[in-house]
């Protein structure tokens, strides 16, 4: 019973965090850009939302402001990379580090509780209670997570099917070709970074409201969690190729990641060890497909050797 409750919580977390994973998927996989901004823009999302809510701005508006703030963070990384010609990884790290100071400025302190304030989670919970539907906060979070994940996937699916979106996808494949077709690859990267970090800040906003607090340290390791979701999704749904299904795979990966975490916590692992565990999961998930294909290649060679011998 207790584990089932934990699974509900894991699904809720998995859905909310999957918005971050989707953002990371855009840069890492679609654009082929190692964007390290993530830890910073995620926290920015939570901090901006918290400070908005504390100042009486309706939570749903706070969420939109966070989205914008994340977009600006992505734009800064894009600027550093495109205009100052700083290598992509370093550009992201510089933004991430400066966001740590900026997030402290935004929040005015290291931590802001939201327990006594309204969030979209409490609002929906109350709304449902009024029509006689009493749901646990985890179930409310699942509903909200599903709503946002659906919106994000639909919008991204639309956008990356448009002319601009298509050329962004092509940039991740082959920059020389994109330039030969008359597009500025600086622009395409810039747009993709803005969209990706908007998604990531949206996730930060949602997670902050769900937890009832924003903390300047809450984004530490977020990038690896996003990666974990992506690679778990890829390992489990290896055969999907269409863009829409790949995004669904990322969401499923995010949920499975949270279930694994819940499971090992139940088994007595300390939360302090979670980051280590996450890194191990990512390493394994990246290693396994390679190991499998090497194993298959070896099998094929053995078979070929046997056939030549028998012939």
């Amino acid at each position: 019973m207790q584990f089932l409750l934990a699974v509900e919580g894991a699904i809720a977390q998995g859905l909310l965090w999957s918005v971050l994973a989707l953002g990371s998927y855009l840069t890492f996989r679609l654009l082929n850009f190692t964007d390290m901004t993530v830890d910073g823009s995620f926290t920015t999302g939570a901090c901006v939302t918290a400070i908005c809510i504390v100042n009486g701005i309706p939570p749903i508006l706070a969420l939109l402001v966070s989205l914008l703030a994340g977009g600006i963070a992505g734009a800064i990384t894009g600027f550093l990379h495109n205009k100052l010609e700083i290598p992509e990884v370093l550009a992201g790290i510089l933004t991430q580090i400066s966001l740590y100071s900026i997030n402290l400025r935004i929040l005015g302190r290291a931590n802001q509780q939201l327990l006594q304030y309204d969030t979209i989670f409490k609002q929906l919970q109350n709304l449902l209670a009024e029509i006689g539907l009493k749901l646990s906060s985890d179930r409310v979070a699942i509903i909200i997570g599903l709503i946002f994940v659906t919106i994000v996937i639909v919008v991204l699916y639309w956008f990356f099917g448009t002319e601009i979106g298509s050329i962004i996808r092509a940039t991740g494949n082959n920059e020389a070709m994109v330039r030969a077709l008359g597009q500025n690859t600086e622009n395409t990267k810039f747009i993709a970074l803005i969209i990706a970090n908007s998604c990531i800040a949206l996730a930060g906003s949602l997670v902050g409201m769900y937890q009832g607090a924003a903390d300047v340290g809450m984004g530490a390791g977020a990038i690896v969690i996003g990666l974990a979701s992506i690679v778990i999704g890829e390992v489990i749904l290896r055969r999907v190729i269409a863009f829409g299904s790949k995004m669904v795979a990322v969401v499923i990966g995010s949920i499975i990641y949270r279930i694994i975490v819940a499971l090992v916590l139940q088994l007595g692992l300390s939360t302090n060890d979670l980051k280590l565990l996450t890194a191990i999961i990512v390493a394994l998930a990246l290693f396994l497909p390679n190991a499998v294909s090497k194993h298959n290649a070896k099998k094929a060679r053995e078979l070929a050797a046997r056939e030549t011998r028998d012939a």
Partner: protein
Amino acid sequence: MLQIENLTKTFDPGTVNEKKVIDRLNLQISAGDFITVIGGNGAGKSTMLNLICGVYPADGGKIILAGNEIQDMPEHKRAKDFGRVFQDPLMGTAANMQLAENLALAFRRGKRRGLSWGISEEERELYRKRLATLGLGLEDRLNDKIGLLSGGQRQAVTLLMATLNAPKLLLLDEHTAALDPNTAEIVLNLTDQIIREQKLTALMVTHNMQAAIDHGNRLIMMDKGNIIYDVRGPEKQKLKVEDLLRLFQELSGGSGFSDSMLG
């Protein structure tokens, strides 16, 4: 149509690797010219093509396209006038995108891209027809990822992409060199056919001397960053591979002749 005046390019200037690759090069291309370009390794053929379309800037000289100086324009702004096919079949297409999507990207070469859908139904019909003219059965594979095609098929598609909306100048850089002889022959004939049907102006770099003689109306030979021989019309048609080899020996001062000229 295209005029190149005193074009100069030095790589890594001021370092020990300094190398003058294009040296006050002049070339006049008339509309409808189909020029084959030959020359030894390192003669500067690829560099000339890259300078024309702006992959990197020239150090000096002018490139005038239909009356406009374009040598200072960034690559993506020049792209609307040039169709390009590279030596490496991987370079001209986006592997993870569908065949139809790749063609749709090329169809919009040099145009503003907006928020309308990346590919329309009518376009698919058009692409199916155009692919059918290649005779490679690709018209039934519009939804396949390009990465699943063979090198020759990809190169044929790249050629189609480069000529989908008639470019002012088609630039082909050893675009059949990575293909097996049979496939190379097919792609070369397709090239000839497309250039003639659409009455395109083209520059085709090749190491295949026979192909350089058989195709096009004009042939230029490059050495050390310059054009050392330029021939056209009936005089070109009469050439033999041996003539070209002898001419190269004479004109390049007997220096640096490499087997690579034979392809």
